[in-house]
């Protein structure tokens, strides 16, 4: 007969405290979300008169959603999603192409200035993007990109230390014997990169793509600084403007807008959790 070690009262207490803290934290996370969801189905009057955390009278009241998706005035929010998708697409493609090339060169070749280059990317971590807008804006104006989505594409595809680290880590694990074998077979460095290394980087690329897309979709600061015109704006700016006009729009409608915005993220998150955790861990723990 199998014997299990008894759960002592001391251990039980500890377990209760542990689970208790987890539950409390979970409530702290879920309660605001619940209020938002509940609020999005309430009518404006209902919203004002009931507690935020009370469930709506009618779970199928999609009025607020209709107002957000098909507004009487102003720009349809489809624009914002389109802009965001376009920016994400372009930026991620550029980042993957040039990020992998950069990692390849940094890992496989020795050349003067290599350490300096690596050091520069590392040092950039200390320069938060929030501090440079005064001058970055000037540069963007000079390039004719100011206040447009292309400014965001340029910035989002640029030197991201986390992505580069992920690529470099991964390339490190690709044995140089692969390169050697290909060289003996007659391949040029270009061929080695495009036919061998790049396909072998697929998992890293997937991680980077997911991480970057999440980051771009959620980012507020960069669009706020460099592309706040409504026609060029991203989902973040659209929502920001939306929530600023509480005078004419009920909070309930804003709740609906919020749900619309976070729905794709939540769906994506549940399917792609693993990648996100892996990316954050490798990008930071080993950095």
């Amino acid at each position, binding site marked *: 007969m199998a014997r299990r070690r008894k759960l002592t009262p001391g251990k039980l207490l500890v377990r209760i405290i542990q689970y208790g803290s987890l539950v409390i*934290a979970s409530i702290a996370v879920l309660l605001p979300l619940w209020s938002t969801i509940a609020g999005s189905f309430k009518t404006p009057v209902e919203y004002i008169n009931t507690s935020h955390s009370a469930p709506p009278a009618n779970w199928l009241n999609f009025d607020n959603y209709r107002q957000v998706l098909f507004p009487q005035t102003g720009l349809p929010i489809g624009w914002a999603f389109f802009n965001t998708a376009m920016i994400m697409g372009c930026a991620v493609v550029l980042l993957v192409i040039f990020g992998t090339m950069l990692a390849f060169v940094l890992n496989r070749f020795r050349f003067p200035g290599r350490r300096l280059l690596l050091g520069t990317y590392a040092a950039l971590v200390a*320069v938060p993007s929030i501090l440079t807008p005064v001058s970055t*804006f000037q540069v963007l104006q000079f390039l004719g990109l100011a206040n447009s989505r292309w400014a965001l594409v340029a910035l989002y595809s640029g030197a991201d230390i986390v992505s580069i680290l992920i690529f470099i880590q991964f390339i490190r694990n690709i044995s140089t014997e692969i390169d050697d074998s290909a060289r003996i077979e007659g391949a040029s460095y270009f061929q080695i990169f495009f036919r061998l290394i790049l396909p072998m980087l697929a998992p890293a690329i997937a991680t980077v793509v997911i991480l970057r897309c999440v980051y771009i979709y*959620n980012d507020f600061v960069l669009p706020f600084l460099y592309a706040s015109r409504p026609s060029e704006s991203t989902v973040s700016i659209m929502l920001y403007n939306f929530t600023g006009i509480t005078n004419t729009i009920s909070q309930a409608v804003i709740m609906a807008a919020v749900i619309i915005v976070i729905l794709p993220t939540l769906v994506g998150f549940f399917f792609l959790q693993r990648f996100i955790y892996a990316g954050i861990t490798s990008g*930071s723990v080993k950095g």
Partner: protein
Amino acid sequence: MSPEQQRMTVIVAFLFVPMVSLILLNIYPVLQLIYISFTDFNGINWMRARFVGLRNFSDLLTRDSELMLPIVNSLYYFAGSCVQIVLATWFAVILNMKLPGSRLFRTILFIPFVLNSVAAAVVFRQVLQLDGTLNDFVQLIFGHGVKVPWLDARQSYSNFSLAAASVWRYLGFNLVVTFGALQAIPQDQYDAARIEGANDWQSFWRITFPSIRNVLFLQLALSVVGSLEVFEVPQLITYGQGKTSTFAIQMIQTGFQFRRAGEAAAMAVFMLLLVLALYLVTQAIARRGNAPVGGGGLGA
């Protein structure tokens, strides 16, 4: 083409675009920022910008009333960050025990981090509003009609609310990072300790903590820098009004709203120097305690 030439071609070809991007969008702006901080540039017209030397900096340091507020606010956020790291470690350790339901809890606690910034701010804000859920609890305890204006920007305690919002948003990140570090600790060490009779508390301090010390230190360093440059949370929840203004918010306002780019640049440079100083300090401490800090460990 000789192998040497081929190598050079590949290096140049592959590095060209990243270099251009790095210089144009990262390096040059920093240099130009430093330059602008010595002028009275208004952000639009270069022609009328004049060199004013260190005037922007001296102005900045003498207007100490305006400087104090953001710095004090940074302390709120830093305190919040410390709480955040401690909580994250606590939860990470619990989740690492692989109790039933761990996966679910980890997912839940991480959700705020993957939400859109603006959305997250709105979600959290409506809990703190006058008729929000938090005040529902307050009324439950203190009686109907008692409502605390958690987000009143004219009061400094509203910074607690904002710091709490920051913790709510970013706890998941620290959790995942610390959890990842915990997972890397080989189970054998714990087994050996158990055989020798160590209890949970001892295991934690003698095995777990030393192994994740570096990661925790890194998070601490990041939070120091983060507290100085905090922008998003206050901007999104209270629009940086009143007592909730931060250094970064003021800088943006000075530069873009008040059209005093030179002063704003000076503020930015001041901030950069502060961050740099703190960065060096943390590196020095790290070296003493033999903990590799992020950024110095990239030698490939």
